[in-house]
């Protein structure tokens, strides 16, 4: 009998379930390559883990604990939470615990450290774990209890998702369009539950031309369409990225020609302008030309969506020789210490400080309204982050607009949401 074709997602899941094939809708148990938690989710996971009554974790090299949300600890409560995580890491000999000064925002850090690789199954107690799909891995967010069980057993139960294919064709890119704009555009089309429970598979000419950093940005926001995972077929760019980082074998998987998709969307890159998502949902997108006049109080460039070196380069390109508007606070947060250092070596940090921006050590910080740039009542911010829910960056009556780093930088200069073309 001829087996039907499988998608990349199905193939990775089948391989980790020890099966030849899996089908959408099946509940399966899969072996995981890495489990991740942070300073918010790990304490809950640790409490649950301790109820299980095992003496050790499934593999001390395959758990990553990254305190990044409220670190450097913003208050006593946060310090207590991180202490729980640190002590757990010591007690169980967890290799990949990342302390302040050697850390980064988890989804920038793990790929950089070669801890997540093509063909992996990765679960994380953080919804943006889907970021690693950029490498051709199956990666999905779970809750703390799921993570606790996985730390004990090295396995997780999953429902095999249906896949949606997004073909982005064309070669004619608008100069300031990035991965962020493609994913915001898609979410604008399909809505915040447009891919609920499903896998979003991205392909096409424009995707081949997209950098790894751009792919991380796109995969990162798959959850903003309700997806279980976002995924890219690995290629030479993927290989170049993982070479020198990987310390264990990895495998490239590809979707079959006759694989099954619940839906197929096709867009042309030339139709995509820089996008801005208006409050209070990422689906409220508008092309930059239709934004109108929106004055801002703050601009944030950073997060697991857009805190990578390419993002900082684009921001510096726009900000070089310019000044931040007197009415605006510009906050720039490199995603990891390595990215920070690279930006320093390239002179980007100098550009930012000369422009009048505040540059911070890596942290999630304002992205989730944690610290380092909280909004007051009625204030508006443009941010390169991934969520603009009510109260996400501070007061419930503040507003967050989402964009790419170039638009955020241009907006910081002009004091209103603006296209980088206006400051060129």
């Amino acid at each position, binding site marked *: 009998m001829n087996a039907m074709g499988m998608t990349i997602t199905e193939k990775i899941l089948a391989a980790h379930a020890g099966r030849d094939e899996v089908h959408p809708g099946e*509940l399966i148990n899969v072996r995981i390559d890495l489990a991740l938690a942070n300073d*918010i*989710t790990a*304490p*809950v996971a640790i*409490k*649950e883990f301790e*109820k*299980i*009554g*095992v*003496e*050790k974790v499934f593999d001390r090299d395959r758990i990553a604990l990254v305190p990044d*949300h*409220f670190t450097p600890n*913003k*208050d006593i*409560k*946060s310090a207590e*939470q991180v202490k729980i995580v640190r002590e757990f890491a010591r007690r169980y000999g967890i290799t990949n615990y990342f302390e302040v000064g050697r850390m980064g925002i988890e989804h920038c850090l793990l790929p950089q450290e070669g801890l997540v690789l093509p063909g992996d199954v990765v679960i*994380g*107690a*953080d*919804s943006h*774990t889907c970021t690693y799909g950029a490498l051709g891995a199956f990666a999905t*967010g*779970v*809750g*703390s*209890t*799921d993570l*606790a*069980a996985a730390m*004990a*057993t090295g396995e997780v*139960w999953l*429902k095999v998702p249906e896949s949606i294919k997004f073909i982005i064709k064309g070669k004619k890119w608008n100069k300031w369009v990035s991965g962020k704009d493609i994913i915001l555009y898609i979410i604008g089309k399909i809505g*915040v*539950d447009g891919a*609920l*429970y499903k896998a979003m598979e991205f392909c096409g000419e424009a995707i081949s031309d997209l950098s790894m950093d751009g792919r991380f940005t796109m995969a990162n926001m798959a*959850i903003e369409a*309700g997806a*279980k995972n976002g995924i890219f077929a690995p290629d030479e760019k993927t290989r170049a990225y993982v070479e020198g980082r990987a310390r264990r074998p990895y495998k490239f998987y590809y979707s079959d020609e006759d694989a099954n998709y619940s839906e197929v969307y096709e867009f042309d890159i030339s139709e995509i302008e820089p996008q801005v998502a208006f409050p209070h*949902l990422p689906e409220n997108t508008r092309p930059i030309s239709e934004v109108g006049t929106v004055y801002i109080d703050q601009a944030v460039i950073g997060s697991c969506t857009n805190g990578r070196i390419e993002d900082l380069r684009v921001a510096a390109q726009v900000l070089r020789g310019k000044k931040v508007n007197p009415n605006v606070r510009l906050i720039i947060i490199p995603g990891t210490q390595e990215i920070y250092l690279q930006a320093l070596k390239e002179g980007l940090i100098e550009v930012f400080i000369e422009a009048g921006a505040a540059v911070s050590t890596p942290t999630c910080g304002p992205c*989730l*309204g*944690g610290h380092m740039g909280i909004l007051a009542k009625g204030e508006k911010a443009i941010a390169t982050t991934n*969520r603009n*829910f*009510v*109260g*996400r960056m*501070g007061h*419930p009556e503040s507003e967050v607009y989402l964009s790419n780093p170039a638009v955020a930088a241009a907006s910081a200069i002009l004091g209103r949401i603006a296209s980088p073309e206006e400051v060129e």
Partner: protein
Amino acid sequence: MTIRGRVWKFGADVDTDAIIPARYLNTSDPAELAKHCMEDADPTFPAKVRPGDIIVAGKNFGCGSSREHAPIAIKAAGVAAVVAASFARIFYRNAFNIGLPIFESPEAAERIEEGDEIEIDLNSGVIRNLTRNEEYQATAIPPFMQELLAAGGLINYVRKKVGKECIR
């Protein structure tokens, strides 16, 4: 087993930041979290919710972050169950894992109004609206997840599974 309670109604796409704002996530204490339950969707909710009440909402309930603090806050606030047109997937898993009963029914989500008295049969998923004298059927819970519930949540399920090899 059935539960019966008074309904608080919410709209579509209620996100985890609305359920429990991140500014309170520097603790994982359920009682602390309950004090801010649904605060950014309705600031008066923590004060007015009473044990046994039921939340009914539109599509994509619990979208956003993976924070288990969201179902924990709801449960700790005394809410007996959540009925929604659909749930975001991580919230759905988390609710099962921590033992917060949830039911998916677009019809119930549409018909039930704030203040209605409803009764839910936990096994069959039949939802009775006592105020309006109507009945709705929630989506069946997959057998594997029923097994999880029967075991008393994921942690107990795993305890049994690993028990043989490596129990202390």
